[in-house]
């Protein structure tokens, strides 16, 4: 039997696939052997007959090799390439006309895109299941590392907190969103557990949520909490935890709404908020721009004065700060028209849909969760930025993925895209269950829903 398996596995070039193929084929031979023995053969005869019945190992191995090999999701690569090119070309032509911004900004944008593409390729080559295996270690070491960096190299530019090393500035909120794929790994590690495991998963949420709160970035905090809550709910829905699903959904989501509302009410009652914070809350609730948000007022005017296609407002960069970062969609609308901005946004949404599709079709459960996590980050960031670009400041989770000139958001986008590519790359290579812990939990098997 060993010889048969050896010949068959030699044909499969990707070593990672060997173990689960070996298990399945060896199981088959043993079953057939048992059947042969029950028909009256000796053990030796039964084994020989069973192996003979398997057919040609080379032929089977070659056929399996064709399926179990690293894959490239060219669709995602093409969309990412298109978005990167769009981002740079649009910025180049806008900056060429601008009297306010220096053309040096385009060099910065190209630099971050190139660095991002490099990061994407590195992450793509990397086995994503390692993030699942060492999720807790990555979370703890990563958090400590970011705290140290933020303490030593923290910068605040235009009310946004950055970690700055020489000329490279990365907004801290992007690190918070980088926690999402790691969180998918933490959820995966807790699979099979009961209430305690779910509580632990909720406790792990606190790291990015408090992280965003201390930046402070309320929009980012709500955004990351929403994404992690959706992932946790998905895990419960898929039966990862041995708890009643309905009870969880009702309990968790009502608490998720009631507790923050209570907190806001209490701080208002106790007069804990500064005047501008109360003003901000009033603004969130009413949705109407006030004096505090004169930028939003300007943005709404620009949108109102824009054309369907073509340039409408002479030089928007004078009216809106960070026209290439937070307000890139507004800038595109002003310079090229509503349709151009809608097209750019549409490409981004298409990318999200494509990521969700890839994730859904994944075999590996960790891959499904991590893929959805990455897609959700893009979705939340795109929608929140899209709203800001038309003057509605409900959530502000950061700049537009891939498109904004901001270094942090660019790098985050490419790293997440790299993770999705890695998930696709290992689609037919990793087994459904990635063994993670030494405890008995990894023996817990589940039916894929």
């Amino acid at each position, binding site marked *: 039997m060993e010889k048969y398996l050896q010949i068959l596995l030699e044909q499969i070039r990707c070593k990672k696939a060997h173990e689960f193929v070996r298990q*399945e084929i060896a*199981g088959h031979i043993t079953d057939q052997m048992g059947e042969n023995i029950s028909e009256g053969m000796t053990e030796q005869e039964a084994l020989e007959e069973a192996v003979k019945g*398997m057919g040609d190992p080379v032929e*089977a191995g070659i056929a399996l090799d064709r399926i179990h090999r690293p894959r490239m999701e060219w669709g995602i690569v093409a969309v990412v390439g298109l978005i990167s090119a769009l981002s740079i070309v649009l910025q180049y032509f806008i900056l060429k006309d601008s009297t306010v911004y220096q053309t040096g900004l385009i060099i910065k944008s190209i630099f971050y895109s190139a660095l991002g593409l490099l990061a994407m390729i590195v992450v793509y080559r990397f086995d994503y299941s390692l993030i699942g295996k060492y999720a807790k270690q990555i979370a703890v070491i990563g958090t400590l590392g970011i705290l140290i960096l933020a303490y030593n190299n923290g910068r605040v530019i235009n009310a946004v907190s950055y970690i700055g090393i020489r000329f490279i500035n990365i907004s801290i909120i992007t690190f918070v969103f980088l926690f999402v794929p790691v969180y998918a790994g933490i959820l995966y590690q807790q699979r099979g557990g009961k209430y305690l495991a779910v509580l632990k998963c909720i406790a792990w949420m606190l790291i990015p949520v408090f992280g965003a709160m201390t930046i402070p970035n309320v929009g980012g905090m709500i955004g990351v909490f929403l994404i992690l809550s959706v992932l946790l709910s998905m895990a419960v829905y898929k039966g990862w935890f041995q708890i009643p699903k309905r009870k969880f959904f009702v309990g968790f989501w009502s608490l998720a709404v009631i507790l923050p509302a209570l907190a806001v009410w209490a701080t208002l009652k106790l007069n804990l908020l500064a005047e501008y914070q109360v003003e901000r809350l009033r603004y969130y609730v009413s949705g109407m721009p006030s004096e505090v948000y004169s930028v939003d007022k300007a943005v709404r005017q620009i949108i109102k004065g824009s054309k369907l296609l073509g340039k409408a407002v002479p030089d928007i960069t004078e009216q809106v700060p960070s026209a290439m970062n937070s307000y890139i969609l507004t800038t595109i609308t002003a310079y090229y028209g509503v349709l151009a901005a809608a097209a750019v946004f549409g490409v981004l949404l298409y990318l999200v849909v494509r990521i969700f599709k890839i994730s859904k*079709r994944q075999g590996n459960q960790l891959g499904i969760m991590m893929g959805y996590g990455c897609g959700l980050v893009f979705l939340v960031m795109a929608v929140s930025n899209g709203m800001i670009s038309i003057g509605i400041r409900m959530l502000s989770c950061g700049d537009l993925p891939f498109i904004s000139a901001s270094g942090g958001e660019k790098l985050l986008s490419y790293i997440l895209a790299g993770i999705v590519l890695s998930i696709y790359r290992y689609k*037919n290579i990793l087994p459904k*269950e990635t063994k993670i812990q030494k405890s008995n939990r990894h023996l817990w098997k589940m*039916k894929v829903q």
Partner: protein
Amino acid sequence: MEIDKSLISGSVTMLLLKLLDERDMYGYEMIATLRERSQNVFELKAGSLYPLLHGLEDKNVVTSYEKEVIGKTRKYYSLTKEGRNLLNHKEKEWKEYAKAVTDVLALGV
């Protein structure tokens, strides 16, 4: 009677999907059931079964999960929604083909 292999190979996918439509099965079980139901006409080799199953899984026609039965971990396959659609399509196609063949053969009678 020995049946020409090429006759069988075209319909193996449909037969496997039909088996999985009834209940989830593991590889060995599929071969044994196929042999039994066809009164030993379909002797599918394991060496061709697994590449076929893994290919179907890649196309999201079937999905798999591991289950422990009497101390043995087995990989069970189950039909997805797409798989069920494919089976319906293949069954329809087969019935039409079989009818056409029967009709042509009947002409000579």
